[in-house]
Structure formats: C-alpha cells, structure tokens
C-alpha cells in the first residue's frame, strides 16, 4: 500500500479574467520512505498540486479528484480535520525561508506553538524539544539562537529553521517546495544533504519540488515531470537521466549545461510555456514539440505504463520514433 495516492487531481482558479486550470488530471503515488521529485518550469502547476493536497490553495482556488493519505481521503477536508493532518502527518517547507517565517515572532515562539497545539506540551517543554530539533538540523548554539528573530539568521540557517519546524511532530511525509531556490549554490548542497539525512534517519517520505534538475539527480528515487499542469512522465530518477522517453523530458535534459560539452550556445526548448487560460485541448507541449503530430493538438495523451517497472509516460509518439 502506498503512503500517498493522488488520482485525477484537478486545480482551478477563478480569476476576474475567467477560470484558470493550473493542474489537470494529475495522478501519482508515493511509497513510504521514498523521495519523489516533481520537476517542471515555473507555472507548470507543481506547487499548486501539493498546495491542493494540504488545503493551502488561495481562496479562489478549487480542487477536485482524490488524494488518499494512508488510505484516508484528505482532499477538501474541513479545516479542523485538515489541522489534524497538517504538521502531524504531512509537513511542508516553502521556497523562501525569509518570507515564510513570521518576521514579527521569535523562532522559539514559532516552533513551540506547533508542539503546544499538536502535542499539548507546556511552553518550557515545547521550547526544549524545539532546541533539540534545531540541534538535529545542525544549527550551532541552538539554545541561544532560538531566542532570535528570523531576520537575524542567514538564508541557509533560516531554511534549516523551517526544516526543523516542519519535523517537530515527526511527520510521515515532508513536502519541500523548491527548498533551495532562494539559496546560494553552496548552501543548496548542504540543505539537500540535510534532507536526505532526514529521510534516512526518520524514514520520512519526501516530495521534492524543483525546477533544478541538478537538485533532482542523486537526491530522489523517482521523478515526475510536469508541464502545463499535466504529468508528462513518471519514472525512476535513474531512468529519467539515463534515457528519457518523453520529448519534453528530453528537451529538459539537453538544456542542462554540461561540463563535458563544448557547445558554444546553450540549448533551449523553442517557444513559451502554455497559457493556462485556454482550455486544455490536446497535449500542452505539442506547440513546442519537434515530434508533434495532428493528433497531439486535438487529443490529450493518457498517462500510460510502458511495461517497464513503474514507468509512465503521456505521449502519442512512440518511444522508438523519438530516437
């Protein structure tokens, strides 16, 4: 049994200009103790997918479909029901640790309130446990630093605080929404190390959202590639890197600059990401796809298993034709 099962998740936003579909028919599952990377350009719907799972969509957002966590349907639960899951079972860390921590509260108060609310601890005990969690994410001198405000920490330290805060209740699933995007490259590596350490130590499953393929490699078991609110391909990370079978994934991979490549010009994917305002007809990638056929712009390809172990792809063009 999977820890998390998402089926036909759909997210729409009502805006003054009309309805925007941010996520269309997304399905995937996650085993306990595994790391799943969700990869895509900005606006591909990867963040909205996980926000919908946790009921964190903006007020004008609406989600349909099914999200099962430990066999329990959690999509569109009431706030009080969701609050039993948030932080206790599923925790999330956000992209920008500067704005995601409350600048007007001490770190101690922001961490302690989680334990006070969920575990009913006293304030002293809650702070004690928070300090040991800060120790666990390798923040030096946590005993004193916990009394400080977020702006007194460096970017990397702030993200460590966020991670420590999310781990306080030992959640089964940790969602990391672009956890390293706002950080320096050297700090990025440290944070990624920390996340994989956490996964090993606590056995936490992790969903890692990123647009940085460099982060995915070596840090995840499976990779899900999203484009235009739809899943393009799901496979083991190894397979995605070794031999991507979807035109979009291939494009992504070839756009990554390599040290062993002497090309003068960086490779790009021609064209622009799709307009979410338009009704999704056909494959969202077809206008930019080199292999596009007539059927691509009229029928949305289904996400089908290729026969190999847990490898899914959504493309009308057979793998052989891409070579």
């Amino acid at each position, binding site marked *: 049994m999977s820890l998390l099962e998402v089926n036909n998740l759909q997210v729409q936003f009502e805006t003054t200009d009309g309805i925007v579909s941010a996520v269309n028919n997304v399905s995937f599952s996650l085993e306990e103790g595994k790391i799943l990377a969700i990869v895509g350009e900005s606006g591909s719907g990867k963040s909205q997918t996980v926000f919908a799972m*946790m009921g964190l969509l903006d007020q004008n957002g609406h989600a349909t479909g099914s999200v099962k966590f430990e066999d329990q349907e959690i999509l569109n639960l009431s706030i009080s029901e*969701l609050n*039993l899951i*948030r932080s206790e079972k599923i925790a999330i860390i*956000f992209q920008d640790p500067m*704005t*995601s921590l409350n600048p*007007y*509260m001490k770190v101690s108060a922001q961490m302690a*309130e989680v334990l006070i609310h969920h575990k009913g601890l006293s304030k002293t005990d809650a702070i004690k446990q928070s300090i040991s969690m800060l120790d666990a994410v390798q923040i030096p001198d946590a005993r004193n630093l916990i009394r400080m405000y977020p702006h007194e920490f460096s970017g990397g330290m702030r993200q460590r605080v966020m991670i420590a805060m999310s781990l306080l209740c030992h959640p089964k699933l940790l969602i990391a929404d672009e956890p390293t995007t706002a950080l320096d490259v050297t700090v990025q590596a440290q944070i990624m190390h920390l996340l994989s350490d956490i996964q090993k130590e606590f056995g936490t499953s992790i969903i890692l959202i990123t647009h940085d393929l460099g982060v995915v490699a070596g840090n995840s078991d499976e990779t899900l590639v999203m484009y235009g609110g739809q899943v393009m391909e799901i496979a083991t990370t190894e397979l995605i890197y070794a031999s991507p079978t979807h035109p979009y994934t291939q494009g992504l991979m070839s756009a990554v600059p390599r040290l062993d490549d002497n090309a003068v010009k960086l490779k790009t994917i021609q064209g622009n990401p799709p307009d979410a305002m338009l009704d999704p007809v056909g494959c969202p990638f077809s206008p930019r796809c080199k292999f596009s056929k007539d059927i691509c712009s009229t029928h949305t390809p289904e996400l089908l298993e290729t026969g190999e172990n847990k490898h899914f792809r959504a493309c009308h063009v057979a793998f052989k034709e891409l070579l």
Partner: protein
Amino acid sequence: MFNYIIKRIGIAIPTLLILIVVTFYLMHAAPGGPFTSERPLPAQVLANIEAKYGLDQPVWRQMINYSWGVVTEFDFGPSYKYHDRTVNEIIAQGFPITLKYGFWSFIVAIGVGIPLGAIAAIRKNTWIDYFAVGVSIGAQVLPNFVMAPLLIIVFTLWLGWLPGGGWHGGDWEYLVMPVIALSTSYMASIARITRSSMLEVLNANYIRTARAKGLPTKTIFFRHVFKPSLLPVISYLGPAFVGLITGSVVIDMIFSTGGMGYFFVNAAFNRDYAVMMGITILVGSLTILFSLIADLLYAWVDPKIRY
C-alpha cells in the same frame, strides 16, 4: 532599543526648538506690534507697556527669555489682549476640555476603526466588507466641519435628542456629537488602513506557513495576523493625533465647547500673538511627544527596527 530611543529624542528636541524659533520670528515679522490699535497710544505709554512685556529688548534676547520660561517653568507669558490673564491661565481653562473630548475621539477612532477594518479584511467581498469600504470612503469626504452641522441638523433639530452645543462639565450628552464629529474621518482612515494591511498580511507567505502548521484559524489570527497588520495603523497614529487636535478648533467653534481651539481662533482674530504662540508650541510639543510614543510602539512591535 535604548539607542533607538536616544536617536528619536535626538530628533524631537531640535524639532521643538525649531518650532519655537520659527513661531517667535513669525510673530515678530508681523506688521504692527501687539499694541498697535486704531487709537494710537501716547508714545510714553506705549514705551512703558513694551518695557513691561520686555518688548524693548532685542529679538534674540526676548526669544531666549521666552524659551527659557517655556522650558524651565512651562510659562508662556502674559496674554497681550486679556490684560489680567496669562497664557497659562487660558490654556489651563481650555486644555482639559480639549483633552477630554479629544481622548474619547481617539478611543472611538481606534476602537471602532480597527475592528471594522479587520472584519472587512477577513470577510472580504461580503456585504460587511462593502459596508466598511463604503463607510470609509464616505467619511473621507465628510470632515469634521461637515459632520458637525449635519449632526446638529439630525440630532438636535430633527430628532431633538441632543443639545446643539455647550459643555456643562463634559456630561455625556454634550460629549456625544463632538466626539462623533471629530472621530469619524479618522475612524474611517484607520478602518481603511487596517483592512488593506490585513489583506496584505493574510496573503503573506508566513500566514501560509501558519496554516500549514495546522494551527486553528483563531490562533493564526491573533498570533500571526493581528500584530503585523497594526503596524501601518501605528504609523498613522501620529498624523491622526495632529488631525484630531487640529479638528478640535472646528469642534470648539461649532459646539461652543470652550476648548483650546476657541481661544486660538479668537487670538487669531485679535492678533493676540502670545496666546497663538503659546497654544502652537503646546500643541507642537504634544504632537512631537505623541509621535515619539508612536514610534517607540512601532519599534516594540517590529523587531527589525531595534538596532
């Protein structure tokens, strides 16, 4: 925090000095002395009077004497028109009245404005939001000198519920209309400021974090939303205070409440420079003191200010 207080006081003192110097020189730049009247006084009499009030000394010396009196003894000198009264006596008569209805106006502006703005923000795009926005736009074009006569028309002339003026020691029925007239536009501004800042805070990333933590809505509101939303309100308190004290002049005119504004306007018509100067400096010091307090309050709420 200590350094910050010192720094703020470092601005407050020169401000006050500049205010004193400017008003003093303005008064002396005025054409005609305070004792120039239609019937010219005999030269000797005029000289005697000027000697009595120290007006025969050089301006800078007069100013130092005056400032010294203000700073050390809180003495604003004698009135030039009411010969038997000092400016201090006039202030002592008018100030408590201004203070009383000013205080209640302040309380009403904050006590109604903040909750109204907060409810409008939380219930955005519902009838209560539209109501609050409507009220605050309406009140923007209904300043105290418009509110006051309208209130008199409705509550005194049509309904006959409240007396149209007077003070009577500040009984509540004499207090109601001045307070409403004075506080409405500031209440509306505070409501509008609270609403927009709270909407911004509600959209902030750290509120999403708080939601993701699984905290109850009430806890999120009182622990995470409320305090930051008040910051713009706190920085508005200084200007609001200036506005209230300025508006008190109108209140005293329309409701005959006999506060400081009454004496100020009278002095303006009589060219009683001593009274005008005394009241201006008093009001200026209060304003400076108040904005100092507001700034310290701001620094207390916003940790990023504390150096």
